[in-house]
């Protein structure tokens, strides 16, 4: 039989985006250490429903660390304990019997709370719409092997492409900067030969979209890198800054590119 934990939860409850929120306390009883963190919340919610209350709302879907939907700040840390994991990958064996666990949403001005622990991250979609793509109309592609891409380049692009768009980087940053998210996309596409044609335009418009949506500036604290469930390196930010500078210079001298 798996070991069981008795825990106290301090949970952010907020009935809707407009309403005031506050911390509520719940007992989480007999939680098996083999359960996932979200399964622990399921168990607590079952209890709340049985007692006639409204269960705690939180975003989740795949529950295997890839969709980027889950988004809890656990004991002050986006995605909680452990390196390179999403909230749904945290398991209760990371906690001790008797622990008090603080659970809050991913906080940032650009991510308004919708209810309890759910936030609105559509700002990320808008940033991608601003330029996070390679224009390749369906049907227009050349043979996939026509352009060999050296493995190191492909691998580096991949490391950046691993971003799941969860927003932990923003939630961890004291300035609520989205630089890691933006840099990961800019560099994923910019490093590949297919993405070069739009490279300058991409970095300029994505960074500007980021600013327009109220994300803060990067002051090189690298909290983002520390919480990123896909362990995306902050060196992409440095690279993007260089790309942005270069593109700005070109923009100043060339009107159309």
């Amino acid at each position, binding site marked *: 039989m798996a070991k069981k934990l008795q825990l106290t939860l301090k949970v952010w409850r907020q009935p*809707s985006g407009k309403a005031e929120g506050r911390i509520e306390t719940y007992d989480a009883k007999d939680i098996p250490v083999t359960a996932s963190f979200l399964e622990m919340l399921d168990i607590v919610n079952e209890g709340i*429903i049985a007692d006639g209350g*409204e269960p705690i709302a939180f975003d989740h879907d795949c529950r295997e660390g890839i969709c980027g939907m889950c988004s809890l700040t656990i004991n002050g840390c986006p995605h909680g304990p452990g390196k390179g994991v999403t909230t749904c990958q945290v398991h209760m064996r990371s906690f001790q019997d008797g622990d008090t666990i603080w659970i809050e949403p991913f906080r940032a001005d650009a991510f308004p709370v919708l209810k309890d622990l759910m936030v609105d991250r559509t700002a990320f*979609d808008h940033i991608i719409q601003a330029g996070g793509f390679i224009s*390749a109309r*369906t049907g227009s592609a050349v043979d996939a092997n026509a352009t060999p891409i050296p493995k190191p380049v492909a691998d580096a692009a991949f490391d950046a*492409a691993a971003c*799941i768009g969860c927003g932990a980087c923003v939630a961890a940053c004291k300035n609520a900067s989205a630089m890691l998210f933006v840099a990961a996309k800019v560099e994923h596409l910019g490093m590949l030969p297919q993405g070069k044609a739009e490279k300058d335009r991409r970095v300029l418009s994505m960074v500007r979209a980021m600013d327009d949506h109220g994300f803060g500036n990067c002051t090189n604290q690298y909290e983002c890198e520390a919480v990123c469930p896909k362990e995306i390196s902050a060196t992409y930010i440095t690279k993007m800054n260089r790309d942005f500078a270069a593109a700005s210079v070109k923009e100043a001298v060339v009107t159309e590119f």
Partner: protein
Amino acid sequence: MVSDISKDMPDSKIPSGPIAEKWTKHKMDSRLINPNNKRKYTVLVVGSGLAGASAAATLSELGYKVKCFCYQDSPRRAHSIAAQGGINAAKNYQNDGDSVYRLFYDTVKGGDFRSREANVHRLAECSTEIIDQCVAQGVPFAREYGGLLANRSFGGAQVSRTFYARGQTGQQLLIGAYSALSKQIAAGGVEMYPRTEMLDLVLVDGHAKGIVVRDMVTGRVHSFAGDTVLLATGGYGNVFYLSTNAMGCNVTAAYRAHKRGAYFANPCYTQIHPTCIPVSGAYQSKLTLMSESLRNDGRVWVPKKAGETRRPRDIPEDERDYYLERKYPSFGNLAPRDISSRGAKEVCDEGRGVGDTGLGVYLDFAAAIDRDGEDAIRERYGNLFQMYEQITGENAYQTPMRIFPAVHYTMGGLWVDYNLMSNIPGLHVLGEANFSDHGANRLGASALMQGLADGYFVIPCTIANYLAGETPGTVTTEHEAFKKVEEEVSQRIHQFLNINGNRSVDSFHRELGLMVWDKCGMARDREGLTEALKKIPELREEFWKNVRVPGDNNNVNQELEKAGRVADFLEFAELLCYDARAREESCGGHFRTEYQTEEGEAMRDDENYAYVSAWEHEGVGKEPTLHKENLEFENVKLAVRSYK
């Protein structure tokens, strides 16, 4: 009630001519809409997975006005993102004898001769363009040192035709489609509605002309009208409660369409994936797949002796049973999914299963690590080993993984013709939500291929065959049909909120799932199915009397969302069991214990069952009507599927 073959079955519109020319010919024969007119047509695309996103982006590029819907907070999170292993394509970059014909052949055979030849051939033809398209979008497929694309063999294929992106192929493909979609959203060609759940289909004069949705943030029930509706809403694996699908995957969109008249084809063809992490307790909310690419290097075994208690490493070689290698020497650990899953069930039924529950088998990498070194294995599967460790707390470099089969994919889905249109004019169905290409069993790495083929290449051509006959924009949401359906949807929501019973939605879903898994899972028989058909309506009745859905409809209400989905599963489960009972043969993922050979292999009955079962809804709790589409095999000879 069973109807006569073909008499009242809609035309499947399979083009005439030799198999290799059908699609080319069909493209030539398909209608065209002139570029200026395309923008007058509105296409509603429900779903933003590989099928939906690729369709929405491409249709918008062509000039159609597109509205796209998904229930997640962003189209990028559709469940396609979870696909790990890879995507097939007949590129033959490895020069190992692959071809469009071979991919076609393998898929028909893999599907246990229960799919349409013409569709499968088209799929194989489109496969190569998909890879070109994805690479052009920046999908970072694995590459060799020389810079060319790498391939691996996957899921029962004897050639290396699978393209992959570490263990995140679905994610990278979806991000590719999502970026194309995002570009079109920015250009104003697509209006995107995330956190919006389709709750019903609206027919006007028998044609699909709109949908009723619930805004999942405000609770508002409202409608959208269009000239055609595309459902790309994924599979129904969550009818089993536990599956490898995401928590929100559901049958609602497809089932609501079914209740409005769309035929549901082959619902009993469900795929049980052999390599998932075993269940650990009653609180379990989902099962995690370990990509079957692991079977390229992992060896599957159980102890020879029942009731073994030694640690795996302490069990000597000669006391282990590598049962897949033993039974299927030429395919070994790469035997197809249905066969591998049943193999695991058999050894566990014999008491030789491993782990606390006895419902598990070992997947052992020791030999591969000895051969290639730990680093090579880490390079290939690092993230999967890491995922395994997060969930189980065990290090699979040192001790074998424990795996067990779990529900993974559903081959069945809404019936569609060659144009991907259902029997309801104007209702098109794409991706996992349709039944079209995988027969009774899907080969690994073929779902991503199908979703993208449907969305990037098939529907953009075939949609005009319907739209060209329609005057654009004739229907608006002012039409009384919309008001009526909206009213019904609101009424149902009101009902859920006012039952105020004693049981949570999840408790019903769990109970239903267990029942369906037990009676209609890896092995089925007439008696068990008949019992399930008695118990499902009882559970449904209790649900409608005793479910508790807290909160209201003016806000986010996740219990309400789940209630709607579970209510539909409670009806759909019956259809699943009817289909499984009516098909008195074993084929692919459908294993009827009454129909097996002496060695326990599936026994097909081609004489009596070489057809697609297309079910027509007759009312809740009433036996549906079966229509049959005969399957003709002109190119692939019907043969016993042997992987020995």
